């Protein structure tokens, strides 16, 4: 190192301030664009009324259907946490690609893992923007209070957010590697979980050969746990611990995969043309 630069130190900004700057960037964007806010609230509201009316109808039936119907709104709201969490994570990343801004970011002192942390914070903010009004609507129109689940709701929320970040990181990696050609994956990848994670029905409803696959997925335990509380009135903490363990594995694997794609993007030079 030459004498002139021997006094160089890393940037004065902390990782927290750089993550904060990225959150601020996306907050500015949301504030400036009412259609983006409406989009975040629109689909959860539509879903709520669809499943709410179905639940109301099922509640008038006799037998098991009436009991099962009681969990539909809860399952819908939790599915939305998972779905919106991943979309929120990837939407913020896609905004950088659409605006051809990623090159500026990656040249700045922002580290890749700080960018991921900012995406995670933004996914929480986006989920909250969608979830809070819909939760209030569920209480008002259907008498279903998700917050009455108390600490269980915290456990469900945490586990679903962790899964959504793991999926989000894999999608970001694919976007880095393949550019906007992989954009459709951001919207569709999570839907495979909708069927296999047994959002609206128990694991026993799946074919026998598919059940082990379902049981290897963390959200399955969340939705099973929700049904156990709402239908059987039984809390099952062990399900949350299994989900947490699986989520830790997913996050480690997703982080490794993301950085593998990131290194590959540096090799192939795709960061210079991410808006194409």
């Amino acid at each position, binding site marked *: *190192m*030459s*004498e*002139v*630069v*021997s006094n*160089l*130190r*890393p*940037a*004065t*900004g902390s990782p927290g*301030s*750089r993550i*904060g*700057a*990225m959150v*601020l*960037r996306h907050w*500015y*964007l949301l504030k*400036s*664009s009412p259609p983006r806010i409406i989009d975040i609230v629109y689909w959860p509201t539509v879903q709520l009324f669809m499943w709410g009316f179905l639940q109301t109808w099922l509640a008038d039936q006799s037998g098991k259907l009436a009991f099962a119907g009681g969990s539909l709104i809860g399952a819908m709201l939790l599915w939305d946490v998972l779905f919106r969490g991943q979309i929120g994570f990837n939407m913020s990343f896609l*905004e950088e690609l659409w*605006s*051809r*801004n*990623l*090159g*500026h*970011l*990656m*040249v*700045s*002192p*922002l*580290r890749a893992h700080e960018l991921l942390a900012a995406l995670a914070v933004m996914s929480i903010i986006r989920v909250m923007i969608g979830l809070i009004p819909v939760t209030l609507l569920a209480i008002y129109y259907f008498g279903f209070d998700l917050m009455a689940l108390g600490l269980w709701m915290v456990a469900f929320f945490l586990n679903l957010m962790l899964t959504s970040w793991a999926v989000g990181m894999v999608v970001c990696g694919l976007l880095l590697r393949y550019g906007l050609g992989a954009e459709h994956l951001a919207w569709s990848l999570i839907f495979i979980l909708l069927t296999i994670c047994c959002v609206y029905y128990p694991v026993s409803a799946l074919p026998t050969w598919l059940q082990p696959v379902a049981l290897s997925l963390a959200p399955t335990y969340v939705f099973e746990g929700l049904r156990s509380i709402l239908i059987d009135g039984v809390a099952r903490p062990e399900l949350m611990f299994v989900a947490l363990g699986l989520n830790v594995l997913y996050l480690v694997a997703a982080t490794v995969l993301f950085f593998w794609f990131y*290194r590959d993007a*540096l*090799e*192939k*030079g795709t*960061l*210079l*043309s991410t*808006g194409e």
Partner: protein
Amino acid sequence: MLHSLPLAIKVEALEKRFDKVHAVRGLDFEARQGTILGLLGGNGAGKTTTIGMLLGLVRPTVGKIELLGVDVQTNRPLVQHLINFESPYVDMPLRLTVRQNLTVYGKLYGVVDLKARIAELAGILDLTHLLERPTGKLSAGQKTRVSLAKALVNSPRLLLLDEPTASLDPDTADWVRGHLEQYCREGGATMLLASHNMGEVDRLCDDVLMMKEGLIVDRGAPETLKKRYGRASMEEVFLDVARGTGVHARETTDE
């Protein structure tokens, strides 16, 4: 006198291959602090890939890059806050206002007293009346000035510019060149300038690298190159190099 200054850029045996394409082939060059180095070449010459490698957006196949005395392949965080760039290959978020964009980038670069720095840059680059306007609503020339403000927000000691005046009218382009020259000469900053505007290169650059098909085919101060090729302007020198014609090319072929 320039040769006594410390090195701001030192590149050794730099190569980049993309599968079968050999984009950059064994570059060796350096730029001393406080100087302006021009990077010239036609489309596909390897300029953008070279700048991408200097910025850390492209990983070299082989070779070594030192910026401000630091090996950036191992210690980039030591100098990242001292470098900035502008390129037509990247944009800034268009929905954010000019002030919001500069605020975000100022925070990313850890700029102290950011409000004052934004006000200062807005004054210098005539952006004060545009600060509250969305960046996407600006004209091409205004956007270029915003990009320059972003490139200068952290008062970089090394500035990499790819076609900084491409979309500007002659008057604004001249004004921007004047400001960039003043920034480097008075602030002691170093600039690597890739440009197709030969007048710009002639006016600003202390030294010029001529690239073709991933190689540096010639180098020297603009005056030296013009004498060598027997030409009156850098534009004619550029055409000679690009087409493989001219006095120097013939001499090289004869050798």
